[in-house]
């Protein structure tokens, strides 16, 4: 029975997320459409019980599942209109599954990814939530919400002196509530959907830039970050926050390159979701304003247009912050929480700020402890970063974007740690550094040395042979080989091009 309900939930997530994508007019590769639909569907689901709570509606299985269904239907109004005009094939094209095209040398990577994913899914399903921050807040609230049909339940009547986790975003509470009501006593299974969707998305994003052998290597480094892997089966905020923060930057940087305005607003929505999950993300979002303004200056838009665009970009983030950190805490929760009282009152003394910057580097980035947290991915990135600077003396625009994001994260986390002393180094800042990992991986995928290596492998390889794919006509194969030989320095490798939509080789739309 729970399996059947899970399938229904899965479809509901997929449809809701697809609705959001169509509202923004996103036209992407099938792999991106499916994975983004699921991720957005989870985000929508995380908002539904919270919204019901804001309107004091009883949280029972009927109200929750009907609301989820309603959300899926309402978000797809543009889809219904499209179906009315063009018929079902219009929607089917978005999810058109092409023949599975796997290259033989992707298999070793897929085997190890499959192993890591399987083990994670099993633990997610079988074991109860374990992190202390979940048990002393969202998980307990969700458990009693199932029994008492409200998020503001008896949990708030007990001694909560030792925890502030009851004040965190309702993101986890909502998702746990849905899964528990669906028959999963430990909830959590939504996290596997998030993990698998994001892993597939990232693999495809990497393969668009570098050769599949290098993409596989980079993804393995990403998956084998010990600390982060644990949070693929232990519910908490930071893993989901990392995903939406990264996706926001992915589409923002894509907008810088392509100028597709809907990607800009979509990036704003994703940043809003990241802020809804962890409210301090708002501070990081604002730090991207300079680079956004720079891009807008280049496009020579009018001031009014720029202001309007930026308002729409930041609005979801402000809403995400206000709803969770202001409205809900101040006017709904029965326990008082003075956020202002948590702010450092000795702002003129900057020594702790520099100490924090130093500690982030020495403790969390270049120490034995850091290897236990992240494996060797940061060292590998450092080496390639220095090598690119030394040997090529320049960084591509895309690489610079990701480097800027890394810098923003580092500077932002230092300031946040300085302003909010309760944001300690070894727990909160450490988990906030999850966001660094996909940024470094995308920087690596835009590292010119790796791109050249990809190109060299592709040229040497010639026409790749796909497993499970229909044999192409010889003429087509010969043409691809010629293309590979003539590929300009900036073009992606043929193997990567073959994975993108044909009309726009190397682009993800």
């Amino acid at each position, binding site marked *: 029975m729970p399996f059947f309900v899970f399938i229904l939930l899965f479809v509901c997530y997929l449809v809701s997320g697809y609705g959001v994508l169509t509202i923004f007019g996103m036209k992407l590769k099938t792999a991106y459409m499916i994975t983004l639909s699921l991720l957005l569907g989870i985000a929508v689901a995380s908002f539904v019980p919270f919204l019901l709570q804001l309107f004091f509606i009883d949280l029972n299985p009927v109200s929750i599942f009907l609301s989820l269904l309603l959300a899926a239907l309402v978000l797809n109004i543009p889809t219904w209109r499209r179906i009315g005009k063009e018929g079902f094939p219009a929607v089917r094209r978005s999810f058109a599954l092409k023949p599975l095209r796997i290259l033989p040398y992707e298999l070793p990577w897929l085997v190890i990814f499959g192993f890591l994913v399987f083990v994670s899914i099993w633990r997610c399903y079988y074991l109860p939530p374990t992190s202390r921050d979940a048990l002393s807040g969202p998980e307990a609230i969700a458990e009693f919400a199932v029994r008492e049909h409200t998020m503001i339940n008896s949990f708030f009547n007990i001694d909560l002196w030792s925890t502030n986790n009851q004040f965190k975003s309702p993101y986890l509470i909502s998702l746990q509530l849905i899964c528990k009501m669906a028959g999963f006593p430990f909830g959590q299974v939504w996290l596997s959907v998030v993990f698998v969707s994001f892993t597939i998305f990232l693999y495809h994003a990497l393969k668009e830039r570098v050769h599949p052998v290098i993409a596989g290597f980079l993804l393995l*480094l990403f998956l084998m970050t010990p600390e982060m892997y644990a949070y693929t089966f232990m519910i908490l905020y930071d893993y989901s926050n990392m995903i939406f923060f990264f996706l926001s930057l992915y589409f923002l940087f894509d907008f810088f390159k392509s100028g597709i305005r809907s990607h800009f607003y979509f990036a704003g929505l994703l940043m809003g979701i990241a802020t809804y999950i962890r409210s301090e993300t708002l501070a990081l979002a604002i730090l991207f304003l300079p680079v956004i303004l720079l891009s807008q200056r280049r496009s020579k838009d009018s001031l009014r247009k720029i202001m309007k665009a930026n308002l729409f970009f930041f609005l979801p983030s402000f809403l995400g912050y206000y709803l969770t950190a202001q409205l809900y805490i101040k006017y709904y929760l029965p326990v008082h929480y003075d956020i202002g009282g948590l702010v450092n009152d000795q702002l003129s003394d900057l020594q702790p700020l520099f100490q924090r910057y130093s500690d982030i580097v020495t403790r969390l980035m270049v120490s034995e402890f850091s290897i236990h947290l992240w494996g060797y991915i940061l060292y590998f990135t450092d080496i390639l970063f220095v090598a690119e600077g030394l040997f090529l003396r320049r960084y591509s625009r895309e690489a610079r974007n990701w480097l800027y994001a890394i810098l923003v994260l580092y500077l932002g986390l230092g300031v946040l740690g300085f302003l909010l002393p309760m944001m300690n180094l070894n727990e909160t800042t450490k988990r906030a550094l999850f966001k660094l990992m996909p940024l470094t991986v995308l920087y690596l995928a835009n590292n010119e040395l790796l791109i050249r290596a990809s190109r060299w492998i592709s040229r040497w390889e010639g026409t790749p042979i796909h497993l499970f794919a229909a044999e192409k006509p010889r003429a087509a194969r010969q043409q691809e080989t010629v293309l590979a030989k003539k590929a300009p320095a900036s073009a992606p490798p043929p193997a990567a091009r073959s994975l993108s939509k044909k009309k726009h080789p190397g682009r993800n739309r």
Partner: protein
Amino acid sequence: MKGFLLTIVSALLVILVLNVGYYKDWFQAKPLQYWTDFLKDKDDTLSLEGIMASRYGVPYTMSMRIKRVLEAKHVVNPIILFEPNSYLRDSLHIYPKIHVPEPAVFYYYTGLEGVWTNSPDAGKANFLVRFTNKGISLDVIRTPEQREQILNAYKKYPPIL
């Protein structure tokens, strides 16, 4: 042939990553161990409480035992006072292997209200969980004087997680 060579290269790279430095230790201690656990767990017939007991360990087992004892005695509105974990650490030297859960987590486990010695509700506690060399006992607090005496005895031990 070139595709085959690249497949060999991919396989070698996977093996290399799994065997280099800390990755090797981690991979064996975590994902491989998790796989072994899976092979064991998939045929398991443990109840939900059994799974939780094996995952959460002593604090959960202790909490559930308290719950059962109180249910058997039909106690209405019990408020359980816990000894501070710093006492278990500094006096009994059993921390962190054995520690009491914080009240929020105890409530999650059992649905019962627990308090620490510095809690505003400590004055309402009517049971005390006491750790001794013989084991754990659940003592009834009968009078306000007795409660005061207990709280004074633990004053020098601040509650910690």
